[in-house]
Each structure stands twice: as structure tokens, then as C-alpha cells.
């Protein structure tokens, strides 16, 4: 089944020049000769976009030549959002859609590029002290805010002073610093209470710099009405519930960016409507499509479908804190057995038409340390052996719960898992609960000892997800505590060195394979669609995107 579906999909994919942002191959740059006017022949560097599909009989790779970028910002790019942003202030933007609209207005000192690496942004360089607690940032002196106010060290100080300890959604990411000190106009020193490996990434994402003069002059409310940053796009207007409009920043410090003149965000909460709006050309990019909608768009003219595995990882959790105490699942052999017992690939094929991939552990594809372990194979015989070895040759009985309506087909996934567990002698009493009540019980750690959920993590690292789901009593949604895991997580948090941190993630996954705190399930594909006139649009695994280097082909 899986092969067939992927086969059909792949062929359609190639025919319609679908761009799948798979992990390999990387986009490359080719040199192409383009004839300009009639007599002049000029060599232009054009970015080549690579279409890659899942292997069928052999890997199919299709190259599409992109339309060259315009010399200056041109045209209008309209992005659909799937919910209403609560705020376009970066530290108040409560979820991904709001954050995506917000991001375009601002810059931080550093930037995470499309490959997940840190790059200099408003700071051209920085040093870290020996003890890993002091960062000295050297700031660019050629940057101005949208209103002409110059960017300098005061901007960084204001960002921290306004955001930390102020009760905003993401204040605690600013609170990771103890102090932010202006050394001179273009040097700041930031101190963290202890070595903090995630600090730079979180700073790159959440510490967007604000204009001190403007902020002081107009105050918080007016600032939020008309936010001003240093980012590639400038705020024009926000008609609540209808659209957010931005325009190109003509003085943007990144040379030759942005490449579209007008940027519009439009909330369209219903996915079927988004699928219609991309076909009519009313919007240029839509996200969060179902696999059926994505398939129906494959033949549509001027539409290309984009898919990538989302960083949301699905799992069935065990409990060793409350309801699971004294249960057979306290034995790691039993937990291993339950991982062997469930045919996750069959579930992905049957319920998600094959549009997903097994999660080998709790680190998602694209995150640091991914690939250190293989997923558990489906092996019911091995499961029975392990159960016998653990002293449960005839299985046992257990309560099991899943949320209703929270994730696509998740109720059915849980029913399938119930069936697979029953196949090795483990009888579960599955209860499907309304999701609001479910999450309350989950937070009170009063769900049955087996419960299903999922977790997404946007920072290019699994750390937040790991701490959140395995942090024991300290974490709101964790029902699992394991001192070895705690130790790993503590070390990861303090390991500033890249290779060291990666090694720790890999070792932790090996440990979590022998002592699984979950039945590992899958990551699903995320589907988006873009008008073919949109060039160089690269969404990332957490559905985040930057648009400063995206352009639209203008018809003559």
C-alpha cells in the first residue's frame, strides 16, 4: 500500500513540478546563460530549486529553473494565515501564525538560517567568556529603524528591560539573561545566570530589537498599534480579523533585500477555503492543508504543493509518577515490548495515506542529533518474548486515554494501537475524552497510565520538547521522571559546544531506546501550496518562514 501510494504521489509530483523540501539534496547554485534583450548575452546566477521525492524505484530529481530575482522590491506577496494573530509583537505572538507575521518586522542580533545554523545579524560578531556566562556582542553601526532612528546598544537594553519580568507570552526567554549592559554605543554585554546552551538560539528567535526613542515617545499601547523595527518589512496597517499589510523597508541593512514591495497576511481559518483561495490566485501561499486537499491541488494550474515533515512528534506516553506506579509498564522490557508491538508504518499508511514518517525517538528530523537510533521495527513475536521475559507471558490489562478532535485521525490511531497491543496480549480500556478536559487531566497527571499526545518544538532542537514531556513533577505535561534523562537534559542545557551537545542528544536517544518513556509514533507531513509565481520561499520544519529573500515573478 505504502509503495503504491508513494509511487502515484511521486509521479504526480514530478509532473506538476512539485517542490518537496526534503532533507537532501541541498539546493545548489548553477550558472545559467540567459539571453537579455536581443544582442546582449549576460551570465546570470540563478538559484536552482530541486524537487525531491521519496524513493520509488529510484530517486526522482527534477530541476526547476527559478525566475531571477528583481533588482529592487517589486510586486505583492499575499500570505494566508490559518488563525488570527493575537499580536504582531514578537514576544506576545502566541502561536506560529502570529509569529510568522511578526517576524518580518524585526531583527535580532543573530539569525537562524534555513539550515538551522546561527548567523550574524544586527551583531556582526560576538565573544563568549571562558565560563560560558558572558556574551559580548559587537553591533552593526549602519542600521536604522523604520522611522530613521539609529540602532545601537540602547535598543538591545530596551528590548530586554521591556520584555523581561513583564508577563508577556515569551518574557521568560528574555529572563534567561541576568543583565544586559551597554559597554559603548555598539557593544553590549549579556550575562546569563549559568551556562545556557540554548541561549543564542532563543535570543535569535525572540530578542527582536526595539527603537528606544520611539518607544519612549509613544508608549506601549501606541507602539503596539504601529510597531517599528529594523526588519525587512515595515508595518502599514492591521485591520483586525481581515488583513495585516506591510511594505518593503527601503533602507534594509541586508543588501538587495527584501524583494517584494507589498506583503499582506490574510487569516483564512478554514483549510478548504485556503485550498480554494490558492487556486483563484487571491493568495500566494497557504499552509496547513490536509493531505486530501494537497492531492487535489496537484493538478491545479499555477499552484505548486510543498510538503515537509513537521517537527510535531506524536507518542503514547507512559506514566511513572502517579497512575502508572506499580503497573507493569514500570519495567523497561515491557515498554520496549509495547514499542515492538505496534505497526506504526501501517498506521501511517492506513490513516494518513502514507504522508508521514516513523519517529525513531523523541528527536525530530532536522533537529540536532536526529538519526542516532533506528525506529523500533514491528515485531510482535519479539514483543511477546520480551513480555514473557518481564514476567507477563499472558499480557496484562491497562487503562488508556486519547484526546478527541485535537489531532487529525488521532482517535483512530489510538484505536489501532489498542488493537495492536491486544495482539500481544495487552488489553487496554481506551477512553476518548474531550480535549479540554483531557489536557486538564494531563496537567494534573491524572490521565490513565497510557495516554496519547504530541509535541512540537520550533527551535531546531528537541530540548524544549524533551524537558516538557519528561521533566517529571516540574513540567506541566509530563508524567515521567527518570534521573538518567534528567542528567542528560541538564548537561545538554549547559553544553555550549556544538559537538558535545550533539553527542549528548545522540547518547540520550540510545538510552531512551532501551528505556522508552513512550511508544514512539510518527511525524506527519505538513502540506502547503504556493502560486508558481512565488520564488525562493522556504518554509522550515516548524512552519516558520522568513520572506526577505522571497520574490514574485511579475508578468510583463
Amino acid at each position, binding site marked *: 500500500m505504502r509503495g503504491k501510494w508513494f509511487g502515484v504521489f511521486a509521479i504526480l509530483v514530478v509532473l506538476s513540478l512539485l517542490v518537496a523540501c526534503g532533507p537532501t539534496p541541498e539546493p545548489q547554485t548553477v550558472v545559467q546563460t540567459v539571453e537579455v534583450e536581443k544582442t546582449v548575452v549576460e551570465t546570470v546566477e540563478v538559484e536552482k530549486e530541486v524537487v525531491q521525492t521519496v524513493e520509488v524505484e529510484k530517486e526522482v530529481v527534477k530541476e526547476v529553473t527559478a525566475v531571477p530575482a528583481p533588482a529592487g522590491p517589486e510586486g505583492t506577496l499575499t500570505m494566508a494565515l490559518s*488563525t*488570527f494573530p*493575537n*499580536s504582531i509583537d514578537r514576544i*506576545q505572538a*502566541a502561536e506560529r501564525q502570529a509569529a510568522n507575521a511578526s517576524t518580518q518586522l524585526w531583527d535580532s542580533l543573530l539569525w537562524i538560517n534555513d539550515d538551522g545554523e546561527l548567523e550574524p545579524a544586527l551583531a556582526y560578531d560576538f565573544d563568549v567568556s571562558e565560563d560560558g556566562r558572558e556574551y559580548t556582542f559587537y553591533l552593526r553601526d549602519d542600521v536604522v529603524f523604520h522611522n530613521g532612528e539609529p540602532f545601537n546598544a540602547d535598543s538591545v537594553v530596551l528590548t530586554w528591560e521591556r520584555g523581561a519580568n513583564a*508577563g508577556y*507570552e*515569551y518574557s*521568560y526567554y528574555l529572563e534567561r539573561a541576568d543583565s544586559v549592559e551597554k559597554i559603548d554605543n555598539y557593544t553590549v554585554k549579556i550575562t546569563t545566570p549559568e551556562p545556557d546552551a540554548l541561549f543564542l538560539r532563543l535570543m535569535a528567535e525572540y530578542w527582536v530589537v526595539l527603537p528606544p526613542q520611539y518607544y519612549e515617545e509613544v508608549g506601549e499601547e501606541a507602539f503596539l498599534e504601529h510597531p517599528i523595527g529594523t526588519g525587512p518589512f515595515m508595518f502599514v496597517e492591521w*485591520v*483586525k*480579523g*481581515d*488583513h495585516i499589510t506591510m511594505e518593503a523597508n527601503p533602507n534594509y541593512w541586508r543588501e538587495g533585500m527584501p524583494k517584494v514591495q507589498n506583503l499582506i497576511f*490574510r*487569516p*483564512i*481559518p*478554514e483549510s*478548504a*477555503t485556503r485550498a*480554494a*483561495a490558492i*487556486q*483563484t490566485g*487571491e493568495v500566494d501561499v497557504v499552509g496547513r492543508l490536509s493531505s486530501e486537499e494537497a492531492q487535489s491541488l496537484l493538478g491545479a494550474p499555477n499552484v505548486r504543493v510543498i510538503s515537509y515533515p513537521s517537527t510535531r512528534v506524536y507518542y503514547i506516553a507512559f506514566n511513572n509518577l502517579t497512575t502508572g506506579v506499580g503497573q507493569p509498564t514500570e519495567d523497561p522490557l515491557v515498554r520496549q515490548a509495547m514499542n515492538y508491538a505496534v505497526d506504526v508504518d501501517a498506521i501511517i499508511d492506513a490513516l494518513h495515506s502514507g504522508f508521514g514518517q516513523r519517529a525513531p525517538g523523541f528527536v525530530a528530523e532536522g533537529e540536532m542529533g536526529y538519526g542516532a537510533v533506528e525506529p523500533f521495527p514491528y515485531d510482535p513475536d519479539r514483543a511477546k518474548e520480551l513480555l514473557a521475559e518481564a514476567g507477563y507471558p499472558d499480557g496484562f490489562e491497562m487503562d488508556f486515554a486519547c484526546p478527541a478532535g485535537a489531532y487529525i485521525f488521532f482517535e483512530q490511531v489510538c484505536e489501532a494501537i489498542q488493537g495492536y497491543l491486544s495482539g500481544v496480549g495487552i488489553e487496554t480500556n481506551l477512553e476518548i475524552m*474531550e480535549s*479540554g*478536559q483531557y*489536557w*486538564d487531566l494531563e*496537567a494534573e497527571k491524572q490521565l490513565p497510565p497510557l495516554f496519547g499526545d504530541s*509535541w512540537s518544538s520550533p527551535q531546531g532542537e528537541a530540548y*524544549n*520538547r524533551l*524537558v*516538557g514531556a519528561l*521533566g517529571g*513533577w*516540574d*513540567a*506541566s*505535561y509530563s508524567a515521567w521522571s527518570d534521573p538518567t534523562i534528567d542528567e542528560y537534559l541538564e548537561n545538554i542545557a549547559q553544553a555550549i559546544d556544538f559537538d558535545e551537545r550533539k553527542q549528548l542528544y545522540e547518547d540520550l536517544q540510545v538510552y531512551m531506546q532501551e528505556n522508552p518513556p513512550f511508544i514512539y509514533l510518527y511525524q506527519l507531513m505538513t502540506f502547503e501550496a504556493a502560486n508558481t509565481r512565488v520564488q525562493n520561499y522556504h518554509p522550515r520544519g516548524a512552519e516558520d518562514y522568513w520572506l526577505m529573500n522571497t520574490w514574485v515573478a511579475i508578468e510583463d
Partner: protein
Amino acid sequence: MQRYFLTRVGQSLLLLIGVLVLVFFLVRITGDPARLMMPREASAAAVEAFREEMGFNRPLLVQFGDYFLGVLQGDFGRSLHFKSPALDLVLQRLPATVHLAATAILFAMLVGVPLGLVGGFNPGSAVDSVGRLLALLGQSIPNFWLGLLLMLLFAVRLGLLPSFGRDEWRSVILPAFVLGLPTMGQLVRLTRSAVLEVRGEDFIRTAHSKGLEPGIIYTKHVLRNVAIPLVSVIGVQFGYMLGGSIIIETVFAWPGIGQLLEQAIGWRDYPLVMAIAVFTSLAVLTINLLTDVAYAVIDPRIRYGH
């Protein structure tokens, strides 16, 4: 008349308080907003601090008292999601909802009532058959399905109308048609049967026998009697529509109150959900009140409490 009006106003206010109580406690049964508002990886301590700050850990009755006093002063609290006054958010969305509701009800009346009249005066005619078919379809087709289907046809296939939003005058056509269709169907059936019924009444026969012009009989005697059930149905439907249509507004990304409510429930944004619920009830109650007054104007028997 005055006394009748005042009694009705009093009843409406009591109802409104009932709605307030009901919504307040119902919303809270669904769970704890503190956890939904905080990021998932926030520590248990941070969630508790938030709960403390928002006052969600106080006894429910205290919270209700606080809320009720606020509402009396026009303060519906701040939306948890948007962090701005809930009432402002509702009022921002009001023009779009009124626009859609008024267009839909107008369409339903302008199409439904004439079709019903023609059907009632000429039962069995071709127009009557068409009208009855439309009435049946209008009342039985699920509107989210019809909405998507019409969107695919008129926006995607034919490119005649926009598929979503409220950007231009044509934007309202599809959502208003889909929203108005069930009411239109109801009006066709109601008008038709009312005309048939009134036509058989004794006083119409009397009018005929005393030699009145048929034109006068129809306009002065038949229509005036038919108007009573019509006013009542139109009033009730319009009241509901003013509360915002969750499904239609969501399907067509129409920036109205219904769409806001759909999202607010998802965010468990208590103050916003309550503000919308109270506002919706207020709309229904006001329209019902006006309907009752209109009744009394049309039919003197009602005015005198018979």
C-alpha cells in the same frame, strides 16, 4: 401599549441575566484557561503564577460577582488572547456581521415572500412548484457543504466571485446567499400556507360577497394577516444572524462575530466568549422585543392582551 412594552423590556432583562449566569458557568466547565494560555513547556509553577495573576484560582462565585459588576458598568473584561477589551473586539467585528446578516435577510425576504405569495394565490402553478422545491432545498442542504460547493463553482471554476474575505461588494454575495437560503425557504413555505389559510377565512368570503375589489382584499385583508407570522420568523432569524454565523463566517473567512467566536472557543478565551454570548443574546432579545412591538402595531388584539 406602554405597559405592554415595559413588561417585555423587563422580561428581556431578566433573560439576559439568566444568559450571563449560564454562560459564565458553562464556559468554566470546559476547563482551565491558564494551561491553555501558557506555552506547553511552561513549568507548573509558572502556570500557577499565571492563574494567580488572572484571578482564576478564586472561588467561582467571587469571580462571577466580579464579572457581573463589571458587565453592569459595560466592562466585559479583557480578551485573554488579544489582551484588549473584549467588548471592543466584538464591536470591531459588528459591521461585517450586520452587513452579512442584513444582506442575507433582505435576500431571503425579497425572494422568499414573493415566491410564497404567488404560490399561495396560485397553488399548483409552475412558480409554486419552483418555490416549494427551493424551500425544500434551502432548508435541507447543509450550509457548510453548499458554501464550499458554490465557492468551488463561482470562485475557482468561473472566477466570477471572490472565494473569501470582505474586500469588495461582490464578496458578500456567496456568504449572504448561503446564510439566507434556509430563511428564504422557511419564508416561502410560511407565506404560502398563510395565504392559503387566510384566503379560506370567513371575513375574506364576507369581503368578497360585499363586493370589494379583489386587489383591495388581497392587500388590505390577506396581506395584513399574512404579515404576522412573517414578521415573527424574520425577526427571530435576523436576531440569530446578528449573533454571527459561525459556519458561514468561518467558511468564507468573513471577518465577523461568528468567526471570532469560533476561534475564541478554541483559545478558551473566557472573557471574549462571554462577551460574544451576551452580545448575541442581547441582539436576539432586542429583535424579539421589536418584533413583539411590530405585532402589536399590526394586530390590535395582541396589544390588548387577548
